[in-house]
Every structure is written in C-alpha cells, then in structure tokens.
C-alpha cells in the first residue's frame, strides 16, 4: 500500500521508455489487439499533440472503444507501442490506476457517475490529490480544493445541483458531471467516448462548447462520436477508423469527401 500512498507517483520504473521517440503527447504505433481471432485493432498508428483536440469517427466495430481500452490500460495490445508524454512513458506496462494518475482521464460511453453520492462528492472523489487508502481516512478538504470545485461547477454549469444525488440527475447532466469529474482529475489528456449520445440538440451544442473550453484551457482531448453535427460543431481534426486502423484523417469536410469513408459508411 505504501507505494501508492504518495501524492503524485513518478513514472513507475518499468514504464520508463528508453528514449524520446516523439514530441507527441500520445503516440500509438502498430498497435494490434486480437480477441479470439477477431482483429479489433489492426496495426493502428496515430499521434496526438499537446493541446490538440481530435475527433474519432467510424462505424460500429471499427475499434474506437478498444483503442480507448488500450490507452487507458484496460486491454493490453498484442503488438505495438503506446507512449505518453513525449515518448517518456510506456503505457502498455501500466494498469488503469497508474495511467489515471499519470494524467489520462476517460469518460465512458454510458455515463458513469457515483449515483449514491452527491454531485459535489462526485467531484471531491475525482479531484486530483491523495489516492492512498490509509491517508484518506483522515483527509480534510483544503480551501484550494474547495475553490477548484467551485471553478468546475462554473464550467459544467451544475452549481444549482451540488447536493443532489448523482443518480438523480438527468442523462445530460450526468454526462456533464462526468466531464466535470475528468476536469477535477486535471488530466493532460481526456478521452471522451460518445459524450452526446442521448442528448437534446441544445445539450449537444452546449457540450461542444464545453469541450472546446476545456481544450482551450490546455487539455488535450480525444472525442469518439457518431453525431456529425456535433463533430462539425467541434471544428477539429477528424480521424476515421475502420476495421481497427486509420482510414482517413483531416478536416471533417476532407474526411467525409473521402471515397473510402463513404464506401465504409454507406456499404459497398
């Protein structure tokens, strides 16, 4: 337990990469994942620069969620490199908790907040800081932490719902709360899986605004989304996945004009 009781663990020894390969915040090269003979990821390679926001589209089964699983340590790749923070850290050697502490936050497809905790407690739990079990028995909230939480409430616009239970929020509010929890973790990179699924048009537009704001504050963001209006609202570089590798990359107009992308989406 003692090893994890430190506030901000340095990169674990086993994950220190040999040399600086890249300037990129996130670097995937030749990543392959196979489930019972099915290639979920097929030699997937791409990079995300510091401060960049990237949208990922692709039909069902293209490997979008598996990609997130690999980056966050839920799934180990069969082959390939996954490096973080300018190639200094080998993510394939770490588990979910270590990767989360390094500064990669993940929002799940289905909104997952702590339903039996109040909204404010959800944020308190996510707030960057002490993660050790024994140390947290006697933990007290500091003024700086309170301020940070107020700041996040401003950003996610849930100030009026502080003391409601997470489970009592509407679907859209839960999505925002979960994004707020990611912000509280203060990650360098946010992975956001289908943030606007099930949202109204107004909520969708607000969510695009929220993500742009988060990105403007220096967080890199990777958004997986099906909703093209939303992707257009984001106005960022788009990457289309198909059968576990990158099919096309560029602006939304470039990608949606790509013949192979049209073929994949409309069927051949």
């Amino acid at each position, binding site marked *: *337990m003692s090893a*994890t009781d430190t506030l901000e663990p340095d990169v674990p020894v086993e994950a220190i990469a040999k040399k600086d390969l890249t300037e990129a915040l996130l670097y995937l090269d030749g990543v392959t994942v196979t489930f019972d003979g099915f290639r979920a990821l097929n030699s997937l390679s791409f990079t995300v620069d510091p401060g960049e926001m990237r949208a990922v589209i692709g039909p069902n089964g293209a490997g979008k969620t598996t990609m997130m699983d690999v980056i*966050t340590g839920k799934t180990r790749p069969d082959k390939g490199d996954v490096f973080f923070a300018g190639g200094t850290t080998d993510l394939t050697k770490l588990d*979910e*908790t270590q990767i*989360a*502490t390094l500064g990669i*936050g*993940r929002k*799940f497809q289905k909104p*997952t*907040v*702590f*339903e*039996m*905790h*109040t909204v*404010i*407690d959800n944020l*308190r*739990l*996510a707030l960057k800081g*002490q*993660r*050790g*079990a*024994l140390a*947290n*028995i*006697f*933990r007290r909230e500091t003024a700086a932490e*309170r301020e940070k939480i*107020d700041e996040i409430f401003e950003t996610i616009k849930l*100030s009026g719902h*502080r*003391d*409601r*239970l997470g*489970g*009592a929020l509407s679907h859209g509010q839960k999505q925002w709360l979960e994004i707020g*929890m990611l912000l509280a*973790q203060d990650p360098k990179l946010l992975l956001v899986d289908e943030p606007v699924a099930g949202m109204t048009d107004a909520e969708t537009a607000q969510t695009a605004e929220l993500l742009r704001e988060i990105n403007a504050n220096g967080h890199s963001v990777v958004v997986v989304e099906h909703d093209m209006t939303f992707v257009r609202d984001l106005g960022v570089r788009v990457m289309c996945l198909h059968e576990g590798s990158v099919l096309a990359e560029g602006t939304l107009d470039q990608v949606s004009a790509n013949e192979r992308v049209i073929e994949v989406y409309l069927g051949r």
Partner: protein
Amino acid sequence: MSNALTPQPVLLGKSGLVFLAVVLGAAVLVPALNLLTSPDSALHVPTYVVSLLGKYLTYALLALSVDLIWGYVGILSLGHGAFFALGGYAMGMYLMRQIGPRGVYGDPVLPDFMVFLNWKELPWFWHGFDMFPFAALMVLLAPGILALVFGWFAFRSRVTGVYLSIITQAMTFALLLAFFRNDMGFGGNNGLTDFKDILGFNIQADGTRLVLFVLSALALALGYVLCRFLVRSHFGKVLIAIRDAETRVRFTGYRAENYKVVAFVVSAMLAGIAGALYVPQVGIINPGEFSPANSIEIIVWVAVGGRGTLVGAALGAVLVNYAKTYFTSGLLAPYWLFMLGGLFVAVTLFLPKGIVGTFYDWRRARAPAPEDLAPDDLAPPDKLPEPKPAE
C-alpha cells in the same frame, strides 16, 4: 461562495445518537435492574438474561462488521463467522490457560484435552496465551492477518460478486474442518470450555457477567462510532463509490483493491472482538462457530435490519436472535430454520432495504426537502446485489 450553505458532515446522525443512547442506556440500566431490584420484582433482570443480552450485543457488533463491507463496499462475505470464531478461539485459549491445575487431570500447564491426547508439552502456538495482553492482541491479529492475506489475493485478482462469496464460504468451511481435527491442538470437536477465571475473576460470578455485558455494550458503541467515522470519511466515500461503480473508481486513480483490503481487515478485527466477548459469556467455543450456516445467518440479520445503515445491522442482529431464542425454546423449535429462511425471502421480496432502510425512506418522503437530496444516512441501492460475472 455557496460553501457556507453546504451542510457540514456530522459524525453521528439523528439515528446514530438514538442508537448510542439506547446501547449506553442499556449498559447502565440492565446492571442496575439486576443489582438494585429484588428477584421478586417485575423489573428484575436475572443474570442469565444479562448474559443472553450480552450475547446479542456481541452478535450486533458482528453484524456491524459485516455491514461495513457488505453495505458500504458491496463485499458479500459468507464466511465472516470465521473471523468471529478466530477471535473467540484466541480468548478461549487465554481462558484455558487460566484454568491451571484446576482441570480434571490436574496438569499445571496442559489443558485437559491435551493430557487426554497424551501430549507431553504445550504446542508452540499456545505459548503466550497465559498473558491477557498477548491474547487480546491475538484477538485482533489472528482475524486481521487472515483477512489481510485472503483479501490481498482475492481483491488483487479482482474476484467479485458471487465468486467472492463462494470463496469466503470455502474459507470458513476449510477452517471448520481443520479445527475439528484433534491434531490441530484446539480441542477438536469439543472445542475449548470449562473456563474458570478471567483476569482473576470467577467467570461464573454475577459481577463478572455484568461487567462482560457492559464491556459488550461499550464495544458495540465504539465499533459503531468507528464504522460511522470510516464511512463518512473520504476513505468511506471511496468505499461507497467502489460498491456502485468500481471501474470508475479505478479510472479515477484509486487502487480499489487497497481500499477493499483495509475495509476487510477492519471488519475482520471487529468480528474478532465480537467473538472474544462472546466466548466468556457463553462459556464455550467450538468448531461449530466456523460452520457456513452461521455466516449466512449474519447476512440475514443485516438484511432484516437494513444493509448499509450500520444501526440496522445491529438492530437486525438483536431482533433475529431474540426471535431465535423465543422460537427455539417452544413448540415451534423444529421449524426455526424454515422461519429464518422464510424471513430472508420475505425481507428480500417485500422489504429490500430492511427495517431501518425502509424507515429512512419513509422519513425522507415526509420531509419537506426534495426527495433526491442526499440523505443523512446513505442508503445503498434498493436491491440486494445481483450476482455479477467476474470481469
């Protein structure tokens, strides 16, 4: 800004204060009614009732320990009787060593069952148990270390749900079989009994029984305050988060397994203390305490009282055991196990939050505040855990 409006967390809620008042009130009132009233008075509490109530209080502490992990972390342990029994055995070993030369065989050192087995010297693990502080330490360490080792392997391997319940059951069953063996050196089938003294006081004396009752009440009160403090701390919030969304907790950067191990060890130690207070009051500890059925019974107590409420667990333990005492001494005795099983089914179907959980819902519904405001006492989701396949 609006922080001033956020209610500060209180250590003890309204129900907690009522609970402590009842337990501590009983600690004063019961001995008073025993000592100060004449045996003919209607208010008189005979000593055998004092011991019976003391036994209920140790069960209440045991139920509290189970509620800490089941109600707040979602760990359904079907082997918690093992930790209770280990604490009981540690106390039993101390009590055996206090018998000294007064045993049937008159051996100054060896307990009777060892003389009977023709053993010539005390096994190494019986050394030290003649000293009370050592035995008291073992009451905590024996269950604590077992829980640490078991929890470390189980939680690190991410064993959850029914699979975890099954291996906890296997653990207590394995210990049952082991303690049945004479070679183990714990008195085999008969266990440890015929105790004479505790800390120099006659264990049968009325005064000793009153003191044991008061100590049981104090242990229950302190155990409650400890559990309540834990579940309301940041640590406890993480525990509840693990219960409701373990994956989220991992992706938030917490080592869920470490939190589970700490809670499991604390819970096992509380169960050990309960066992240690139980043994001198009932006068015997035998391998039957390890029986899987005992551990399942604890789950019924907690479910009846209300999982995830602490107070409910203690209440459920006392109520169900009172019913057990009542029904197993009359015409209905042969049907007690059917009644217990029926009670569990009925509670699961009609009162899924238990007595106290249902009361909290009722109180919240009457309160003027919107019903989705956080309750003073966090109740768990309104269903017992579904068996979840391991990930």
